[in-house]
């Protein structure tokens, strides 16, 4: 079973909300589709990004039984990066999920 775009975005936003629970009040991240994840205007650092990646990969596995990797070499070298924001990351999750079906 592959994941839908809406559900993928929900999972990314849930992971951002979860990350907020670990961050101080001054470091809270906006939980929205256009929240930038990496790069010049990103709201999170690489520690939080990895936490988000781990949470999302696990959530997809739990829901669909699919093991997707958001950080393999192809992803890291992809241009533009899927990690621009929450919405583009969810698009990439759907792409990986469909490819794994």
């Amino acid at each position, binding site marked *: 079973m592959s994941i839908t775009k809406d559900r993928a975005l929900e999972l990314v936003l849930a992971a951002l909300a979860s990350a907020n629970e*670990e961050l101080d009040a001054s470091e809270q991240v906006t939980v929205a589709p256009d929240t930038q994840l990496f790069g010049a205007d*990103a709201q999170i650092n690489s520690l939080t990004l990895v936490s988000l990646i*781990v949470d999302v990969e696990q959530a997809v596995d739990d829901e669909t039984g699919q093991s997707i990797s958001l950080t393999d070499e192809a992803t890291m070298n992809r241009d533009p990066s899927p990690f621009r924001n929450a919405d583009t990351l969810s698009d990439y999750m759907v792409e990986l999920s469909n490819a794994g079906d």
Partner: protein
Amino acid sequence: MRVVRTISNPTPKSPERAGSGLQSGGFAPKGTFIADWTGAVHEPDFIRLEGEFVDLLPLVPDHADVTLGWRGGARARLLNRGATSAEQQRNWIATRPTSERNYLIVLKDQTPVGMVSLVDIDMVARKAEPARFLIGDQDAVRGVPVAAEALFLLYRHAFDVLGLHRLYGTIAAPNQPMMKFHEYSGMRREGVLRDHLFLDGEFHDGIVYGLLESEYRSVTTRRLQGLVAMGRRTSQP
């Protein structure tokens, strides 16, 4: 200000170290030891480690004020209690044993953003503990792979320069983001030390992690360098 002076002709600690070739930040030429501004002499492999987004600078007493400020922040509540005054912090830095490598993490424009250490370096069992990892300036590191590259530089130094076989450490159980990061970067969870830590007025389990050289080469390098590559890609206009 740092100066380099010739003191003796050190013998490399291991064949790996002698043969290693960091692209930068490797150990100094034979015969050179490095003295910081206090006159304290460091071993030749204890020098600046250079990366793409960050450098690791050997921690010197001049860094007392900035590191003390970080240690007093909320982020440091899951680290062991440290100095409470600049003078204590200065003394603490000045008296670090030779079995430790303590670094200040700086961005390429030299903005200090954090600290990280390699402690209990045991050249017989070829093991050491990464420790005191703290990002102090959260605003300066958003969108930049600072944690990934800083730890990669430290691990690369440990395995490729010092010739270590194993890194290990204990993370406080409530520090979930740090545990996820270390597991992602290849560390294996090896056990639980119950109520091992007393932090912020409470006992916490200590989760033990370990990383062998083979795991560093097969997993850690790929994953941490991948994050650095992604940072490079997303930082381009």
